[in-house]
């Protein structure tokens, strides 16, 4: 009898381990993979040389074919389409301004895409992961979970593995609770950019399709057939 009771206590003590599975790498990965396709963002850039931070607002749409639309609305309208090979830029009149395929840009684009579209494989190949858990205040490195609080916040610190990215950024911190809420880039220059995301549960494919279709017809076509 007593033995059974002891087992029960031990069992109860350890249940929290099972219940508070919010802050382990698997569930964080899951949250990253399952982000909304359509979100609003508020971006705050803190630049050392400028007295005030730069705040901007816009929206993100994760499109098909590993492409992502990053559209700035305030202070100026401008749209960027991120894809595996680089970035296409559109001005406020939605005219294609430039196509940048430089290696560094292409890599940055890949990182962003992976982050926002939740491509775990790509992320893991380009960045190293370190998970921190805890409520407000002190965040401790997760060795074992001690308590299951409902607002179990987590912080994922990603450090770049490739030379191109590490020259520009020291780390990317993704944090959130029940979903991904904030992404913060810290640059080697000391400047940082913080993006706060709010998902919108609407199908926005019609709104942003033009940036994909338009891209195909107006992209610079210089493929050469050989003589």
């Amino acid at each position: 009898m007593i033995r059974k009771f002891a087992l029960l206590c031990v069992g109860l003590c350890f249940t929290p381990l099972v219940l508070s599975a919010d802050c382990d790498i698997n569930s964080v990965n899951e949250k990253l993979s399952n982000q909304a396709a359509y979100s609003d963002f508020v971006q705050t850039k803190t630049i050392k040389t400028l007295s005030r931070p730069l705040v901007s607002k816009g929206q993100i749409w994760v499109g098909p074919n590993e492409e992502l639309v990053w559209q700035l609305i305030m202070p100026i309208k401008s749209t960027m389409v991120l894809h595996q090979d680089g970035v296409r830029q559109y001005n406020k009149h939605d005219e294609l301004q430039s196509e940048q395929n430089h290696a560094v840009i292409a890599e940055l684009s890949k990182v962003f895409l992976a982050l926002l579209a939740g491509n775990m494989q790509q992320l893991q190949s380009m960045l190293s992961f370190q998970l921190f858990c805890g409520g407000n205040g002190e965040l401790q490195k997760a060795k074992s979970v001690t308590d299951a609080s409902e607002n179990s916040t987590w912080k994922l610190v990603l450090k770049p593995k490739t030379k191109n990215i590490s020259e520009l950024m020291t780390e990317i911190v993704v944090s959130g609770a029940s979903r991904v809420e904030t992404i913060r880039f810290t640059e080697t220059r000391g400047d940082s950019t913080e993006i706060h995301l709010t998902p919108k549960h609407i199908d926005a494919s019609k709104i942003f399709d033009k940036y994909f279709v338009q891209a195909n017809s107006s992209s610079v076509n210089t493929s050469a057939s050989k003589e």
Partner: protein
Amino acid sequence: MNSNSKKTKDKYSIFSGERARAFLWLVLLGVIGGLFFGQLSSGIKLETSILKLLPKDDSDIATETAFEQFAEKNMRQLIFLVQSESESQVKASASQLAEKLQRNDVIESVSFLVSDEKQNAIAKFNFDYRYHLLSKADQKLLLSESFDEFSDNVIQQVYSPFSGKLLDLIKVDPLLLSYRYATSQNSNFAKESLLKLRDEHLIAEIDGVFYVLVTAKLSKHPFDRVVQQEIESLLSKINKTWDSQSDKVQLRKTGALFYASYAYTAAQSEISTIGVGSLILVITLVVAAFLSVRPLVLVSFAIAFGISSGFVFVHYFFESVHLLTIVFGASLIGVAVDYAFHYFSVGALEKSDQEKNSRLRKIFPAISLGLISSVIGYLSLLTTPFPGLQQMAVFCVFGLFGAYLTVVLLFPIIRLKNSTPKFLLFLCSNILKLAQSPRTVWLWRFLLFLPLVALIILFTRQVEQDDIRQFQTVDETLKQDEALIKKVVDAPAANQFYLVQGESVDSLLIHLEETTEYLDELVKNQVIEGYQSISQWLPSRKTQEYNYSLYKKLIMSRVYEPLTELNLVTQKQIHELQQTFIEDERKILTADLWLDSPIGNQLSHLWLGKIDQKYVAVVSLFGINQLDELKSFNENSVFVDKVSQISDLFSLYRHKTSQLLLIAIGLIFVILLVRYNLRKAFIISSAPIIAISTTVIGLSLLGVPMNLFNTLALFLVVGIGIDYGVFFAESKTANRDTLLAILLSAFTTIFSFGLLALSETGAIHAFGLTMLLGITTTFFISPITGHLVNDDTRKIRE
């Protein structure tokens, strides 16, 4: 020797005093030798350029020199792709290759990494000249005074998550002019090749396989055998090292050097098999026919003397000898041996030494007439304005004459035993008997129709092939490598481009700009996919000044307000920058400065500098879809198609040669009339005519096209055919000796040149086949015509 004292009354007085004659030959040898050494000391000039075959007035020296230089630069390039499924391995291996190449003496430079340094240099360059460099798109914006676009773009960039480095740039270039220019140049002109810049490497990824580009430039000529061997051994060492590694690494290569090297090895192997083979056959034949080595030695003298005289006199008159002349001249051997063999075969029956005078006496008219008719035939080539054909004429005339003189002057002094194996004589007798049957006349009359058939074929079917690509020996591996490299690297057309010139550097740049406008139309119409011109990166002075004037309004306007509001740049900084702008007005980008820059370096092969008082540059073409539509733009901007140009030249030569062939036969006929009556002359001339007709028909049936080389071979067939006919005519009877001479002559020629038909090289194969068909036919016809020509009992009744 005592008999010599009776020579005064001898009808053939020139045949006595054979020692004197031999001495004369030695003197001539001395003369030739002297001339040769004279030329050797002042430098033997061997001409390999195809251009030198053009008639003098047609060649424009500037264009000629220009594309020789451009071709030279292209030819020294070696392009490698290192291939592997492992990205780290491919980079490491490429480094190895680049390093090994760099250390080799025959390599002048290696291009492998686009270092950070280089990238920074390019950025700095764009920054220094930003007030004079302007993209077409921005030009439009400035003309419409849409200045807001510039500040908007800066804001956009600043707020983008990627802004990073640009913030520093904004302080010194607040409207990001240098950045705008660089971006537009990259998207417009940096070819969208599969190669991307990653970690300083130019690397492409196709279907999971990685390719890294390494290019090298030779310091010496790629056709130098030593250079070829150096590179081949370096590469084989590298391949061995790579074979032992775990991750498979492959090397792909292309470049003129590899094609030349392959052609050389192929030729070498053919020379050893075919060459040695034919040499053995010829030696065996000659020795077996006379059971003595002396004829062999003597005929070698005749050949050597003939070829040397030919060479020496061509060099004397033309101050250089073209490779084509030598190639053709070597085949002259086939004709030159005729005289020697006639000499040896005569008196095959007689065993007496004292008859040796009579040998020469017997054949003298025959070989002299043979010589004269052949020489007249070749002299017709002198009438053309083509240096190549003129050289061949001189070579043949002096060469044949030299061989002839050797027979006349030197041979008599050497005692020859006459022992031809009986079976050979028996064979000759039997062939003659066959030829004497009454049916042969009808056979001959039938054969006379062949020339008609040949003419019909020539006029109705497309039997010619002048495209010089048929002359290329190509290795499959090289072909595949080249195709892959072209796909990955996106290289321009190697043989077609525009050559633009100007009185001064700046007028050259203006002409380049005009040319690119013209080419833009061609791109729009999909005649070509694209082009590359220096003017895309280096605007003319006029354009730069115009750009500056457009920028002025922008720089002095109030476009900066949104930027200063955000404190991206201060008002003070703006004023300073405006000041700098004013000062920089004179800061024009010159050609020298540009050529020194990283991009200038990369495109330096397009800059040919000063040639013959003019400045010349090349515009290279990508993806030619409609070659026929490409023409010269104006007198300053000429379209060059090397392959077509040379092919056209060969075609021209071939046409001329064909015409002259017929004229030559006509002339020979006239010469023969001097000595023979109409009937005999006709019979003699019919042999070569039938022979070349048969050859043309035969080649057409075999699907072998007529090109310049086998047309020239027909000249030889004619020369040989006439010789055989004349020998028979002079021998008064269808003589077994004469037939022996012809048999030997024909077979030695077949063994030496007919065997070339075994070659893999298109041109050589065609040449050999022509000779084979021609000589074989001539051999079979000659007993028939020989019989007919001597058959005085036949009256012309029909």
